[in-house]
């Protein structure tokens, strides 16, 4: 990974407002290209094809016809600048190409050159550009410095969604031989083994068994983590990080306790042992469909009547917003629960109907704050009420802890800042981008640590949890514990 050589120690200032442009600040960043073997396993060219220019333009033309959003967004940006100071990667790096509109312009300028009258006739006048080698390199660099978090969309008066542009850019790059190693490798593993880790069924069964022993030691109760139980009524699909990573695994244990306490007959699946769907990040709709189908195939072969998704942000967006389109409906599910549900929806429903009891005094030593994950906040919903994705996790938290502190309202709910590691950037060779991109979240957190002595940052996304536990120490916030929401729910649960 040649990127490591170039990656200087991240230096992050504190409480800067809007940085002064620093051109080329992140131009050295380069996440590793997918190896030929990885590319070819997904039916993509192993390395940059000779006629990459023509193929890229042709693919862009196809995407403009396949994705209405992309076409509209190319035409309607007025360069009003409203989005320019809204991206955490720009705020953290000062690189002008990390301003959302500048990121879109990487494609828009090429679009104007090849697909618009004005750009064909007067390229200089309207900022139309050719897709040359330096431009191609900028595509690769800066489309891998966008976490597709859609925060910029919240502020754009035309509703322009930079994530759609980034996805299109990455899709084109992969199609001409420049996939990203991290995401493409994960997509390959999910397709061949069933989860992002490449963890096979016997290994998974072992892990679950040892977790059951841990719970038995802790609670004295035989709480199960069933795998491929064909008699179950409910399939739970959770990110594979929940099986081994800290602090994720405590969230899985919490979920198991809740399901046990409610007397639900549930199971995990070895076929669909992964909630994540990295093809959302790479913009590859065919792959996204294949990965989503695993879940509905597993649900049907296990004969369950409910599907519940664990704490994973983008998996929830795919399940909530795209599943219908991808797998064509859920007639096999219980008509009372006709779509995949979020574990927070389930726990909240159990709490309201009195099937579980939570005692916040069991978390009396904690002062918590809640980090809204971008894909949940801006890409999905919960509870069939507008804004349920904000109120439901908070209601669960309030029932589980004595004190919930909110961070600045500019950084929560719909305006939440990405953790800095979403969208396929959670890889070591992008560590500098990740640390700098976490700056706005770290600043907001620092403020509540100072004012309210917050001890725990709660998240409901596997990527947020991994990213924040890794980068917060670099922002002098090593003392804040990053925690799964269901860890706290599990601890407060009266068993």
């Amino acid at each position, binding site marked *: 990974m040649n990127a490591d050589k170039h990656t200087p120690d991240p230096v992050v200032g504190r409480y800067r407002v809007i940085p002064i442009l620093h051109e080329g600040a992140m131009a050295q960043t380069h996440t590793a290209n997918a190896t030929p073997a990885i590319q070819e396993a997904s039916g993509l060219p192993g390395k940059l094809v000779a006629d990459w220019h023509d193929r890229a333009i042709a693919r862009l033309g196809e995407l403009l016809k396949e994705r209405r959003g992309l076409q509209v967004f190319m*035409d309607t940006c007025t360069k009003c*600048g409203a989005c320019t100071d809204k991206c955490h990667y720009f705020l953290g790096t000062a690189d*002008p190409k990390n301003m959302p509109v500048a990121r879109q312009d990487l494609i828009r300028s090429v679009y104007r050159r090849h697909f618009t009258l*004005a750009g064909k006739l007067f390229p200089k006048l309207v900022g139309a550009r050719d897709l040359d080698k330096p431009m191609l390199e900028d595509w690769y660099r800066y489309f891998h410095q966008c976490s597709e978090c859609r925060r910029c969309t919240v502020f754009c008066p*035309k509703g322009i969604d930079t994530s759609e542009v980034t996805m299109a850019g990455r899709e084109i790059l992969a199609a001409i031989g420049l996939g990203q190693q991290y995401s493409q490798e994960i997509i390959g593993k999910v397709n061949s083994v069933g989860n992002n880790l490449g963890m096979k069924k016997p290994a998974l069964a072992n892990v679950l068994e040892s977790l059951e022993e841990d719970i038995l030691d802790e609670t004295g109760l035989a709480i199960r983590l069933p795998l491929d139980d064909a008699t179950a009524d409910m399939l739970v699909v959770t990110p594979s990080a929940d099986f081994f990573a800290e602090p994720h695994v405590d969230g899985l244990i919490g979920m198991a306790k809740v399901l046990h306490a409610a007397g639900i007959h549930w199971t995990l699946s070895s076929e669909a042992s992964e909630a994540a769907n990295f093809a959302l990040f790479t913009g590859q709709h065919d792959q996204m469909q294949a990965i989503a189908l695993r879940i509905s195939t597993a649900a049907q072969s296990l004969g369950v009547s409910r599907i519940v998704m664990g704490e994973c942000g983008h998996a929830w967006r795919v399940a909530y917003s795209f599943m219908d389109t991808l797998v064509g409906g859920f007639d096999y599910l219980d008509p009372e629960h006709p779509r995949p549900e979020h574990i927070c929806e389930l726990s909240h429903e159990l709490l309201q109907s009195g099937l579980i009891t939570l005692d916040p005094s069991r978390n009396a030593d904690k002062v918590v704050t809640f980090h809204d994950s971008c894909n949940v*906040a801006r890409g999905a919903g919960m509870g069939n009420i507008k804004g349920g994705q904000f109120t439901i996790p908070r209601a669960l938290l309030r029932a589980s802890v004595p004190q919930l502190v909110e961070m600045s309202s500019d950084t929560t709910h719909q305006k939440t800042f990405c953790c800095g590691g979403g969208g396929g950037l959670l890889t070591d060779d992008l560590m500098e981008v990740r640390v700098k991109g976490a700056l706005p979240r770290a600043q907001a957190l620092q403020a509540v640590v100072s004012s309210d002595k917050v001890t725990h940052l709660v998240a409901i996304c596997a990527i947020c949890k991994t990213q924040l536990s890794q980068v917060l120490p670099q922002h002098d916030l090593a003392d804040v514990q990053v925690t799964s929401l269901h860890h706290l729910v599990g601890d407060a649960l009266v068993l």
Partner: protein
Amino acid sequence: MFDTLVGIAFSLAWLWLVCGIAYRVSVWLGARSRFLIPLAPAPRSRVGVLGRLFLEVFTFRSLARANRTTWLASLAFHYGLLWTLVMHLRFAYEVLPIFIVPFIRFGIWATLALVTGLVILLLRRLLIDRMRYISSPSDYLHLVLLLCIALSGVLIKRVWPTNLFEVGEFFRGTFVLNWMPLPDHAGLIIHLSLVLILLFVFPISKLVHGVGVVFSPTFNQRDRS
């Protein structure tokens, strides 16, 4: 002869404007819209979606969230422009209709809002480093063009008046291909030439955003869960 050429140019401009916008909309609608990508939290009902579109189109709600100065300047400019356009409807009628009278009466305020808004938007683009970085020559020229149109319009109206009845005759003629003479007035010719440029640029530039906003899937889709 010259007047006839200007007349023909306007007739073509109306056609170009209508066809150009229709073509752009057909490109948008011709593209597939397979995935649901409304910006959450999204309205759950169709009425809710209409409400969202209304707020975006008429109050620039998202811009208000982003930046107060730009928001106020944009409101001043766009509503000033709308008001001015209504004033110009007078040229469609031989007898001045009552509903236009108040628009003309307070027209000066609209012009002021329009010009002030444009100046702030232009200054912003010139002075802020982020704005300069994302701007192409055309982005400045659009603003300059609009400013010149506004200022030449003020000139004709307030400083160096022309025969408005004849202007009306001329315009009504351009819609029915009956090209009439224009008053002999250099300021008017400048104003009209600039307007012609604007009409030709509109459907093939970012100016078409006014129509495009409602086609944005992040705004016009609803939460269908």
